[in-house]
């Protein structure tokens, strides 16, 4: 979140989305703050999503139960029905639609409650729009491919043998620490997806707060040194205002 300026790069992100989703992705936003909701809906539509908006909990639940949705983004505190209650109702109805919880509470245990209720991710308000986009992307990608567990990850000529804990680039072995391997695995599993600093802190270090130091940047630059040094085509790219992405760039 820190310093994430949410600057969209319409060209690259639009092409990215169209490449991933063959049909239109349907998102339901449940948010009672109409002003904030309006801006979010516009932003998400610009990013290529089909967005529905519900302004209170009851309406949100009925739409969530009725429509064929790919993702639900819900506020935590809503009139008529709490965001967590909506998730519980959904899960009781055996609906596995991924849910992203937005909360203005942001305490440590509120986050735990949100995930315990069946939420798939949690974001504290205020957040950068780029952060929201990255997390939506991550949740959408996660659902279909989660079953396909492979023991070897491959991106271009970079290979990570998860069982042998061996990383090679163009056949040459690269020595990495356990934590660097975890960081690389996190990026490789999300190939082509923008991963924010906050997502990395949460996913790799299990830290759910914002340190002031540029910790993630330093670790990424070390990983870059190991993976991309001397390589013709670097794989780790910085996305200005958002985070990082690991992908093979067609030049």
């Amino acid at each position, binding site marked *: 979140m820190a310093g994430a300026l949410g*600057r969209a790069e319409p060209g690259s992100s639009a092409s990215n989305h169209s490449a991933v989703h063959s049909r239109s992705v349907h998102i339901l936003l449940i948010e009672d703050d109409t002003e904030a909701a309006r*801006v979010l809906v516009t932003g998400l539509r610009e990013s290529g999503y089909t967005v529905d908006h519900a302004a209170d909990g009851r309406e949100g639940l009925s739409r969530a139960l009725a429509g064929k949705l790919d993702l639900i983004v819900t506020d935590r505190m809503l009139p008529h029905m709490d965001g967590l209650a909506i998730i519980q109702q959904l899960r009781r109805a055996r609906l596995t639609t991924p849910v992203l919880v937005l909360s203005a509470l942001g305490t440590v245990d509120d986050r735990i409650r949100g995930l315990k209720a069946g939420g798939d991710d949690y974001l504290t308000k205020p957040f950068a729009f780029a952060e929201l986009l990255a997390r939506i992307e991550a949740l959408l990608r996660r659902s279909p491919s989660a079953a396909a567990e492979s023991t070897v990850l491959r991106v271009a000529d970079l290979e990570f043998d998860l069982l042998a804990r061996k990383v090679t680039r163009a056949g040459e072995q690269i020595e990495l620490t356990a934590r660097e391997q975890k960081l690389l695995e996190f990026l490789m599993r999300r190939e082509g997806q923008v991963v924010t600093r906050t997502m990395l802190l949460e996913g790799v270090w299990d830290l759910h707060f914002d340190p002031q130091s540029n910790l993630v940047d330093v670790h990424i630059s070390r990983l870059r040194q190991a993976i991309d040094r001397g390589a013709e085509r670097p794989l780790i790219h910085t996305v200005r205002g958002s985070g990082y992405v690991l992908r093979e760039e067609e030049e």
Partner: protein
Amino acid sequence: MREVRRWGLFNTSAFRMSMGYTLLVTLAVCVTLGSTYLLTQSIIQGDVDLILDTELRSLENQYVRSGIPGVTDEINLRIDSWGRIGAVYMLADPKFERLAGNVTNWPFDGEPAEPWPEFRIESIEPGQSSVHPVRAAVRKLPNGDWLLVGTDMSQDRRYVRTFQIATLWGIGLSILAAGIAGFSFSFRLARRVGHVTDTCVRIMSGEQGHRLPVIGTSDEFDALAASVNRVLDRLEEQTRTLRATFDSVAHDLRAPLHRLRTRMDAVLRLPALEPGIREPVESSLREVDRLQRTLATLLQIALAESGAPLASPAPVNLGELADELVELFEPVARERGLTLTGRADHGVIVEGNRQLLAQLITNLLENALKYVPSGGRIDVAVKRLAGHAHLVISDDGPGMPAEERQRAGQPFARVGQRSGLEGSGLGLSLVSAIARLHRARLTLESNDPGLRAVVTLPLSAAQAPSPASLSRSMSA
């Protein structure tokens, strides 16, 4: 709780009280039985002495009436009574040679010093011989002869001995009975007080729904449990209200900030934005992010200082966490020309919230990173010391003035705000708030040179030292 459990039952006031009671009972029994014994003995002795005195007097009268022959006759007459009542007589000349009586030799060395001398006599009867204790009285007759009258004490001695044994048994049994009663009394008391302690500990560690058992005996314990439960109900209600208020405050502060940020984000997404607009909006956005971080810190401090207990605490391996954070910060430290090292014992487990503890260590590390000049050292250590977990983060930087170090523990104390350096100065306040929330103590010491932050946390009950588990199984 662990302090109480370490010595278990023996350390309870109930035990000490009942031991005192036992001692008192023992003393009372000893005094009663002992004085009865002494009294009985002296009564028996007094009876014997009276008889002996009477006998002597009657023999002396005989001497006055009819001289030595009269006494001799009288003695010979009475000798037979040895077999029946155990009477002993002897008449001896001035040289203590026997003249008459049923004692063969003068039993003393000359004239006995004490008024009621005692000696042993061997009685020779057909078929058996036995030694008897004899209590005697001696009188010198006017002609220089010696008159001795004695009585066999074996019957009385046996009686006294029996009494003695009975007394000792009595004392022993009453000590035993008082001991058992005291032990079971203090055991029961300790168990019921233990329920109270256990419940309090569980509530303090986050199980807020927990209440004391009211058994229904309507004794003082039930009354205590009921009133403690009422207090707990009220506290829980207050905590709920506090959290609800807190949530709505957090919501009311974050919602407008969120709208502001979302709108600015939308502006930045406009196509073909002029740099004259983009730049001020971007810098305002950075300001919003900083404001949001400060707000998050303030809210967290406020929540921690409000006295609301830590929600859902769990065992956290403090050693592992410290090492992970050292690993995370090490490249950043190296980039700034600092050496960051970690020495953590991975067996140190505390009860708490992993995220908050990580935030605590992070803030202390970032504080050190901010102030220690290039070339300096920062060290993170986690160890177990005197039944507590110790987290020590030390550096060799410029340190902190003593009075500022002392203020660091106070809520919202704006310490660590050294001139020329950016920072809200809330970092250490958050550290001390998180420490308080974990029933931990934060002390800032001089590292000569530099600063040493020491956080002392209670160890998780999951790894209590062995004596505690021993007494726990005892009182279970």
